[in-house]
């Protein structure tokens, strides 16, 4: 062990842990900021999520958790962010596409 790490250990020992009120404040700031963005989402987001899930599961087997929808607001402009995690394919996506086409 280097002298430096030993020294920092000694310093840590004497350093006082952060006060609990400070910890509380930081935790609250994070969770409340998160909950406020959730709160401001329009009600149709979860319905939209369900519809998108219905459409995608027609072609690929995915779960509800695999679709994430977020609404961000920047400079008076709303951005709808859609994130779909697809399962690992053995074949390339293009061959899957072909498969669907041939099925029809």
């Amino acid at each position, binding site marked *: 062990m280097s002298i430096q790490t030993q020294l920092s250990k000694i310093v840590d020992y004497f350093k006082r842990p952060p*006060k609990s009120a400070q910890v509380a404040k930081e935790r609250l700031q994070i969770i409340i900021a998160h909950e*406020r963005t959730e709160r401001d989402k329009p009600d149709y987001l979860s319905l939209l999520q369900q519809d998108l899930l219905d459409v995608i599961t027609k072609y690929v087997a995915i779960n509800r958790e695999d679709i994430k929808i977020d609404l961000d607001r920047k400079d008076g402009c709303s951005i709808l962010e859609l994130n779909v995690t697809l399962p690992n394919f053995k074949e390339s996506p293009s061959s899957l596409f072909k498969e669907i086409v041939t099925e029809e």
Partner: protein
Amino acid sequence: MAKIIVVTSGKGGVGKTTTSASFAVGLANRGYKTAVIDFDIGLRNLDLIMGCERRVVYDFVNVIRGEANLNQALIRDKHAKELFILPASQTRDKDALTLEGVAKVLDELGNTFDYIVCDSPAGIERGAQLAMYFADYAVVVTNPEVSSVRDSDRMLGLLSSKTKRAEEGREPITEHLLLTRYSPKRVTNGDMLSINDVNEILAIPLLGVIPESQAVLRASNSGEPVILDQKSDAGQAYADTIARFLGEQLPHRFIEEKSHWLKRIFSLKEKETV
């Protein structure tokens, strides 16, 4: 038309009923004709805090269902001349409160009263939503503690979306923060969120700070709202809160740690030498 005040918090046990009782008495003692309504259907308690539990004959739900008229259900308070109490029902029927029923009662009260104080139940169920729905003012009661602050923020969200004023796109409800059970000593020690911490997070105007006080339990034991105990710190803090609500500018008291008697003597001596 009466002004409607909702006392709300989300979290239970932070002092909504204590605050409703003291608020109502405070307003009435200033000469405003005031009614205080217990919205906690099934868990009636405002009557105990106001000391009128043995005079309850008819209640809020009786009036809504037309089983009694408003004058039969209103209890005249024994402490303040201009104050009347409308107790909650002890029914277990969750659907006893209806929007139309509450609207009717508030309308009728509105003709004769200056202020209507709505004591909200904890939680975000029907009783809590109806208590805030018609409000013009909200007093958000918060303890300097994580779960209470978070729940208060949830209530602020509901106040700005699930109320009549919000739905009609009118001027929003005037929100006030009331910090209760505040312990300056624990704040100094770094073990309690400070006034500034809570203010920074919730970002609504601070109406008052009620210190953690033995007087509150004494008051509820005897059924005398704590604002009537003007010797106590909590009672004085509630009186200040009412004054601020009515537009007076008053500094916040009981927010600094009481210094040790030895320290006080020394600081006195310092002052004398200056």
